[in-house]
């Protein structure tokens, strides 16, 4: 269940970015999951729900975008999209295609509530 490790990396990365931008809360987190990573979305979501406890992200929903696989044939150069792991060129049947997309997992975006610039500079301690 590598989803747990990935969820921890996701929360760490998202919280660091949110704080760097002066966020006081997080409305949502979006992650892009390439199909070839073998990540199970439901397991990632459950892991995320546990990993956000006590962080700035607590309560922010996780939006998961599954990314299809895109690969280029070394023989005929045709680029195709795939929904499975068997990457055979549909045009010429060659295997060993070069993966262009779909083998990575990205923190894609953050929806933040950010303190106004002067507020954060002043420490936000006035009423």
């Amino acid at each position, binding site marked *: 269940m590598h989803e747990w490790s990935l969820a921890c990396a996701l929360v760490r990365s998202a919280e660091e970015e949110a704080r760097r931008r002066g966020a006081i809360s997080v409305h949502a987190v979006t992650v892009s999951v390439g199909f070839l*990573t073998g990540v199970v979305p439901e397991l990632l979501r459950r892991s995320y729900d546990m990993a956000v406890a006590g962080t700035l992200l607590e309560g922010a929903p996780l939006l998961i975008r599954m990314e299809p696989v895109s690969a280029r044939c070394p023989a005929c150069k045709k680029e195709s999209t795939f929904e499975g792991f068997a990457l055979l060129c549909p045009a010429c049947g060659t295997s060993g295609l070069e993966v262009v997309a779909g083998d990575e997992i990205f923190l894609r975006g953050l929806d933040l509530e950010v303190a106004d610039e002067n507020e954060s500079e002043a420490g936000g301690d006035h009423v």
Partner: protein
Amino acid sequence: MCEHCGCGLPDEAKGGTGNHDHPHDHTHREEVVLYRNLLEANERNARENREHFLEHGILAVNLMSGPGSGKTSLIEALAGRLSMRLRMGVIEGDLATDRDGARIAALGLPVWQVTTGSTCHLDAAMVHEAMHRLPLHDLDLLIVENVGNLVCPGIYDLGCHLNGVLLSVTEGDDKVAKYPVVFRNAQFFCLTKTDLLPHVTFDAERPKREARILKGGLKVFECSSITGEGMDAFVKYMETEREAMVG
């Protein structure tokens, strides 16, 4: 500064006391688009590992498979055939116990046992820490035995030069297509326990065919660590790859 009343400015600039009762949070919503690779830290560590191995002239090999498919036995069989020609060290990865590490130590080989606790795979940072427990100057070949798991180790680059997947004939000939992730970054595939083929229903061609579809150019070996059948080809592969690496 609040746009409604100027609070945040000195009192004289506001022309008042600074008291205000209008509703405002002094915050705004911001949608940020990022493309931050969550495996980036691991990939950076893996690159450093690879450079480190290269500096020492060490061929590093990551062995992945489900539990019980014969990774440790393959290492033992390899050790018996290599020792005079290549100096081998081993990093063992397991959730718990040092049993595998003890087996390798019993052969007189340098070994470091990583126990991951609850983590289902080795990552590049764990390998980095472990490699510095080994006498790198005295090694030519480093075998990293990953945690027994046919899924999760597949997406973690350890910085090894070769990634290999093992499947034993007792696990069933349908497993390759069922567990495709580990094959994506593999350079070789080893069908193990072939001495048991007469006793099981197993079409040896099926996993080989399916593995080659998942990864073009995959090298395939059929070995028995018990009888030694097929081991010569595997030993030769390790030696050839080491020679190619050091030029």
